[in-house]
């Protein structure tokens, strides 16, 4: 409405989000905005609240305070399945496939419950699992299981995907492959929030980052600026994370 065509659309707005675990603020008044096709890196030391942010926006935890707006609609506190159908999805730090189902059946579950039907073949092709369609899960490598998480998300025709620690444990070739996939997702308009410790990988897939420390936002801007920011340096000091 009244927007210029050149302006990209805001897909996700997180406003003053606070999540409390028995008195402990794991997420403290965090706000961020994400636009169509944008990729935002989410970094911070261990226990700074990255996964909690993902879990709260994806409906696993109810926020104590704040709002989540998806494509103009307030979805705060909605159930995970509602959010998944509305277009928020995620991958898991440790992949969570349905282990008794085949690869294609894993994707079929998402496709059955998707608002917009997506071709399973196409989805599997996008994550390079087309040839493994009939494999049982235990035949997949760790990297393939991570891509299956992505495939399940894609089958729900998502607007935003949270990618939690995708790079850990992958070989450089696998990393390049995934980075290329994520770039392709962005070109199709999907916005990404990439939780990552590996800065080299982050550099490949995002241009801006969001830094959390003890549940609070301490920096927002380009990755390059983040690396020279005094507070960011102090928070990471001594940590193996930046190396």
């Amino acid at each position, binding site marked *: 409405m009244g927007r210029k065509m050149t302006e990209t659309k805001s897909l996700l707005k997180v406003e003053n989000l606070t999540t409390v675990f028995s008195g402990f603020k794991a997420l403290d008044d965090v706000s961020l905005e994400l636009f169509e096709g944008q990729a935002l890196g989410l970094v911070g030391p261990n226990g700074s609240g990255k996964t909690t942010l993902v879990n709260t926006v994806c409906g696993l935890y109810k926020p104590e305070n704040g709002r989540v707006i998806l494509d103009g609609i307030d979805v705060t506190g909605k159930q*995970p*399945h509602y959010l998944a159908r509305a277009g928020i999805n995620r991958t*898991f730090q440790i992949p*969570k496939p349905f282990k008794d189902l085949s690869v*294609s*059946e894993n994707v079929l579950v998402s496709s*059955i419950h*998707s608002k917009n039907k997506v071709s399973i073949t196409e989805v599997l092709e996008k994550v390079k699992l087309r040839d493994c369609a009939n494999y049982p899960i235990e035949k997949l490598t760790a990297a393939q299981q991570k891509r299956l998480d992505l495939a399940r998300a894609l089958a729900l025709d998502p607007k935003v995907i949270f990618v939690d620690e995708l790079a850990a444990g992958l070989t450089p070739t696998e990393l390049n492959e995934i980075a290329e996939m994520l770039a392709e997702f962005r070109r199709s308009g999907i916005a990404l929030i990439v939780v990552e410790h590996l800065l080299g990988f982050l550099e490949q897939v995002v241009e801006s980052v969001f830094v959390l420390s003890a549940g609070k936002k301490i920096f927002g801007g380009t990755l390059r600026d983040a690396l020279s920011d005094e507070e960011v340096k102090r928070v990471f000091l001594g940590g193996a994370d930046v190396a």
Partner: protein
Amino acid sequence: MPKLDEIDRTLETESKGKRLISPAVAALVPVVVFAVGVHIYSNELLLTYMAIYIALAQGINIIYGFTGYLPFGYFGFFGVGAYASGLAMLDYNVPPVLAVVIGGVAAALVGALLLPLFRLRGAYFAIGTLAASEAIYAIVSNPSLQSITNGPYGLNLAAYYSSGTAYGTAIALAAIAILAASYVRSSKFGLTLKAIRDDSYSASMSGVNVPRQRFYAWLIAAAIAGMGGSIFGWSTSVFYPQAVFDSSLSVLAIVFALFGGVGTVWGPTVGTVVLYAIYNAIGVSNPQYFQLIYGLVIVLLVLFAPRGLAGLRQIKSRRATTVGAKND
């Protein structure tokens, strides 16, 4: 635009093929065996009970095999069905077969009321359902409700007794339960339940409304037990509340299902026929030992052979596929 590609089409046709032929066979074979069997082995009442147990074992199959929730209190639905159908006959003169359907609906309604039990997990759920069923038993058999339920004195349905029809209805129920289980197994609904059983949060991120899907499975299982209880009451014709609200009903149905193999269509049928026959050959004279033995069998099966008889076969075929896969 939604276009069906190769894999999508395979997934569609695979489940369609399974949906039509194998369920028909799985349901028809027992029907024929029961129809012929009664001319060979003339204890019709025992065969009626066996058919009812097949239905109960399939009900356990649907709720435990596909959702992972083990309801020790499953007998509660059985009792509710027996009473709802019995009272429908006695108080409103409803024809028995229709009363059986009413018994199923009543059990499903009670199932809906018990939905909050799904907040419990594992053993807590099992015990929660047990407590709920004992509570229903206490209410139904309470002397102060004698004007409605005849309290502790049970129901007398002798006026509606008709051995052939009751037997036929029991066979039909067994067939319906088998068809229900095979529908659950090969449908998108069943695929969704399996996904929930594997990882419920992951399933919800796949867009699955987890509580609702579980609820549907629960209702189907409850209705089957309710109809089973109805036919039991009708064919037994005189029963006391403790006979239809009997925890050993759950124990037996669970043992039969686990022994044959939950998550399969044939397992619970085969498990019932084998173990119920053994139970009647030697168990009826010492029922207390049998409950103990079958209780132990449940524990051992859950711990060491969660897939039952069917699991032994699957392990073999899985080995074969893994070997085959290495070559491609």
